[in-house]
């Protein structure tokens, strides 16, 4: 049994204590006595003679009304203390409530038809109710980013208000990020505010701000300690520099989280409160794309993957539609853990948006719909800077390549002109190919350098040799359908790129073809020339690649991947919440983005940069328009197997610990104040009854 006083102010207690005193005083000063004439007070005088002895005690002892009134006041006073008890004794006075707001928490499998998120919030609310004035708690919600809804406070009202602000997202989960943030915040002494205090700010910013987004080092972490000592505040267990007690970390989640094992939760004692069920039915669309058929012009291939990520057998119809048009349907029947592919071929070239719906009655509708778009056909602008390279020009003018690119060929001397500087700065071209030459200043676009390093971030790694290809990355889109073991190169040099560069083709001497990032652009570098200009001025082939079938395929891949032509057919798909760099012509400065059947946004290009779009919180098909023309399209889908695997995990990896679920052992505060008030009303009724019997 513990008591949570409803009053914090001394005057309130004084007032409360005065009530019974006033009642007793009123009993002695009772003004209203009904006068009655009687024959003689002779006998009454004798009767009350001994009652007058110890009159005070007699009155108190014999007066049922007074007793009842004092009892009623006592019950009311006790009710104000909010008496109750918890099922379990809680250890620490500081607690962090970490609320999983990822997509899987939207699953509706609660007993009362509530979602997991609502259930988690209810359980946090119960915990807040159990807090005493000496407890403090912090509320953090996380999906793929963490957000501090309320820094450490003892004010239960503010915690409840913060809990009300918690919103479910449709994103994945990043537990490690959230734990890093929370562990850092827990290390700082909390600024405990008195209940009702106006503010309780921490360095995270006030409630309502999206304070603690992602960056752990930026918001949480050791800097908190430093700041608190600056403020001269000290925790109850130690002043500045003193140790801060560990806090309880209460994770309310269904456990569908990536493991966060690389963390040392020095300041937290983690507990995992599992929400949801371990037995659940869920069919999910895990992939869905539409593309214009390469082999059959005029047709559209639609491919989807449906997986049974629940724990029971499931079957459901799959319906493909475009807007309101029902296009096709199929049926899937899967055992737990199975997945299947579904393919549709549509002879409708006019369609550019598709929705696939699983008509399943599972508790998680978010993964039962998927979206795909066909991006509008698009032409890639390529600037080829070369002293002359027939194989390359041939590769760029094949039927397939010519359909998606527009090539302008200039000599290397063009690099010195103002015209180049202007178009380089404006990013007019989608791809610039530097054949055996390099610009003085890198353009604002993707580049493809052949036999020359693009900029100073790149270097040669060794002397020119006759390289022998030992490995290449088949998974990279640039090398799709490309087989290179028969490649012969007469002279080439190994490459060393800027940090994070990726070797696509590795020779015995080192990376021969590599790709690296530069300010959001990609630079592809070939460590060998295709055509070598001899000292005599004649040209000679340096490789047999151009004679291989893979050469035009590679050039086409370059156009698709670096030039952005790949998206020209199948629209891109993004996870909810991810920022999207729109693929629009450099000449377009402002676009309108509209989600099918939903909102509309306008986005402007920042000078010298692309157009970014961040409002991708809701799944759906998004169309980018410039004026009347559709210039880009993409879709947002969950496509997250971890979120779709709804079965509640029995344990989660929190830091170095594996924490088992606390299912069913929720600490629940049982309060009695309502019963006390009902009892008080009963006493009042009894008091009134006794009174009316006496007076009436």
């Amino acid at each position, binding site marked *: 049994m513990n008591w949570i006083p409803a009053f914090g102010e001394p005057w309130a207690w004084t007032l409360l204590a005065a009530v019974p005193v006033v009642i007793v005083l009123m009993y002695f000063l*009772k003004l*209203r*006595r*009904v*006068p*009655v*004439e*009687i*024959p*003689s*007070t*002779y*006998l*009454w*005088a*004798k*009767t*009350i003679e001994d*009652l007058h002895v110890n009159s005070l005690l007699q*009155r108190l002892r*014999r*007066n*049922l009304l007074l007793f009842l009134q004092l009892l009623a006041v006592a019950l009311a006073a006790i009710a104000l203390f909010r008496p109750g008890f918890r099922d379990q004794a809680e250890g620490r006075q500081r607690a962090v409530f970490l609320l999983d707001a990822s997509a899987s928490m939207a699953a509706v499998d609660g007993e009362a038809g509530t979602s997991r998120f609502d259930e988690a919030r209810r359980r946090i609310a119960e915990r807040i109710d159990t807090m005493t004035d000496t407890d403090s708690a912090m509320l953090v919600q996380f999906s793929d980013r963490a957000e501090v809804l309320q820094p450490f406070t003892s004010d239960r009202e503010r915690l409840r208000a913060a809990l009300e602000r918690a919103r479910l997202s449709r994103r994945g989960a990043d537990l490690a990020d959230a734990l890093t943030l929370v562990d850092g915040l827990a290390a700082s002494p909390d600024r405990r505010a008195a209940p009702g205090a106006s503010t309780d700010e921490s360095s995270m910013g006030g409630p309502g701000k999206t304070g603690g987004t992602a960056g752990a080092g930026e918001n949480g972490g050791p800097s908190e300690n430093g700041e608190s000592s600056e403020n001269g505040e000290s925790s109850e267990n130690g002043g500045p520099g003193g140790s801060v007690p560990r806090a309880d970390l209460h994770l309310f989640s269904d456990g569908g989280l990536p493991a966060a094992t690389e963390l040392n939760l020095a300041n937290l004692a983690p507990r995992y409160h599992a929400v949801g069920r371990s037995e659940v039915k869920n069919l999910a669309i895990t992939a869905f794309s539409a593309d214009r058929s390469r082999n059959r012009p005029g047709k559209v291939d639609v491919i989807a993957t449906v997986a049974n990520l629940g724990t029971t057998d499931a079957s459901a119809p799959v319906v493909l539609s475009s807007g309101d048009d029902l296009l096709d349907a199929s049926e899937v029947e899967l055992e737990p853990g199975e997945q299947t592919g579904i393919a549709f071929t549509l002879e409708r070239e006019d369609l550019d948006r598709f929705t696939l719906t699983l008509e399943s009655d599972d508790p998680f509708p978010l993964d039962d719909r998927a979206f795909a778009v066909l991006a509008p056909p698009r032409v890639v602008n390529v600037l080829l800077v070369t002293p002359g390279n027939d194989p390359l020009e041939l590769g760029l003018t094949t039927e397939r390549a010519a359909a998606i690119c527009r090539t302008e060929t200039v000599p290397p001397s063009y690099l010195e002109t103002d015209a180049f500087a202007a178009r380089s700065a404006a990013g007019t071209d989608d791809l610039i190919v530097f054949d055996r030459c390099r610009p003085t200043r890198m353009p604002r676009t993707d580049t493809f350098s052949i036999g020359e390093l693009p900029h100073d971030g790149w270097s040669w790694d060794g002397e020119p040799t006759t390289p022998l290809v030992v490995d290449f990355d088949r998974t990279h889109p640039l090398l799709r359908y490309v087989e290179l073991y028969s490649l012969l190169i007469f002279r080439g040099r190994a490459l060393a790129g800027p940090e994070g560069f990726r070797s696509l083709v590795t020779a015995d001497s080192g990376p021969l073809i590599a790709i690296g990032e530069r300010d959001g652009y990609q630079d592809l570098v070939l460590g060998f020339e295709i055509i070598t200009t001899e000292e005599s001025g004649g040209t000679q082939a340096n490789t047999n690649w151009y004679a291989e079938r893979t050469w035009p395929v590679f050039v086409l891949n370059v156009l698709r991947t670096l030039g952005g032509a790949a998206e020209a057919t199948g629209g891109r798909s993004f996870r909810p919440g991810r920022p999207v760099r729109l693929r629009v012509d450099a000449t377009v400065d402002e676009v309108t983005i509209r989600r099918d059947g939903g909102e509309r946004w306008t986005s402007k290009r920042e000078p010298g940069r692309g157009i970014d779009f961040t409002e991708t919180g809701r799944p759906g098909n998004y169309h980018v328009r410039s004026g009347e023309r559709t210039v880009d399209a993409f879709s947002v889908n969950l496509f997250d197997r971890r979120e779709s695997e709804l079965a509640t995990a029995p344990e989660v990896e929190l830091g170095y610990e594996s924490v088992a679920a606390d299912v069913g052992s929720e600490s629940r505060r049982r309060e009695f104040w309502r019963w006390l008030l009902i009892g008080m009303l009963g006493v009042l009724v009894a008091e009134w009854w006794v*009174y009316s*019997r*006496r*007076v009436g």
Partner: protein
Amino acid sequence: MTAETATEPLLSPEFLGKLERMELVSRKIFRGRMKGERISRRKGQSVEFADFRNYVAGDDLRLIDWNLYARLDQLFLKLFREEEDLRFNALIDASDSMNFGDPTKLRVAKQIAGALGYVGLCRADRVRVAALGPDGDRAPTLRGRASLPRMVGYLDSLRAGRNVSLHDGVKRFCALGSGPGITLLVTDLMDKQGYETALRMLVGRRMDVFLVHLLSPAETDPPLQGDRRLIDVEDGEAKEITVTPYVLGRYRKTLEAFIEGAKAFSSRRGIVYLPVRSDQPVEDVVTRYLRERGVVR
């Protein structure tokens, strides 16, 4: 407090008829002043035979039973009972406290005193029905049933309000020179100075005292509850009290003790203690209860 019902006659003709056949009983021998209809224990001249005794010189020869002398050859005197009158005093407590009940205790007291007074009048006793206090001074001494209207007239004229203590009232009565006889005191005994001296005074005068203790239902079972300010109707004294069942229980015990005290006091001094509730029918009280208790026969 209930106003006295003036419209109804104090004593109904039927009741009076019953009373005419009754007589007052004195447990003591009183020497009457005049010959009355009451058979005295004294021997005297009447038609009722009492006893025989031997003749002694000087006896009235007219009383010798000559038949007996003829048979026994001895002179016996034939004795007859003397018939004489009886002094009957009825004292009514007319204080304000008697003005309670329905009918009021005062009315019941008047009825009882009037009824017994009429019994005395019918037996040619000297009857004086008087209120305690100043009103008692004008009470006539009556004899013969023709005096009934005067007695009733006096009783009707009595009003509550002459608040004299029992002691003072009885003392005043005794000072008027009332001799031995039957004295009926009708009172509620609610006297803060106590009733004992008054009764002692009456007993000291060699009176045959009958004490009718009148209590109204409001006194035996007070209809009070809750917080009350009790005001004594006689002296205005107020008592603040919270009447609870517990207090009521104590009151009843006090009342019982009071009655027992009066009873014990009376029996020790040869006073006939007659507790009467004011809501009992007066006819029943006089013809049955007082007869059973030997006040009348």
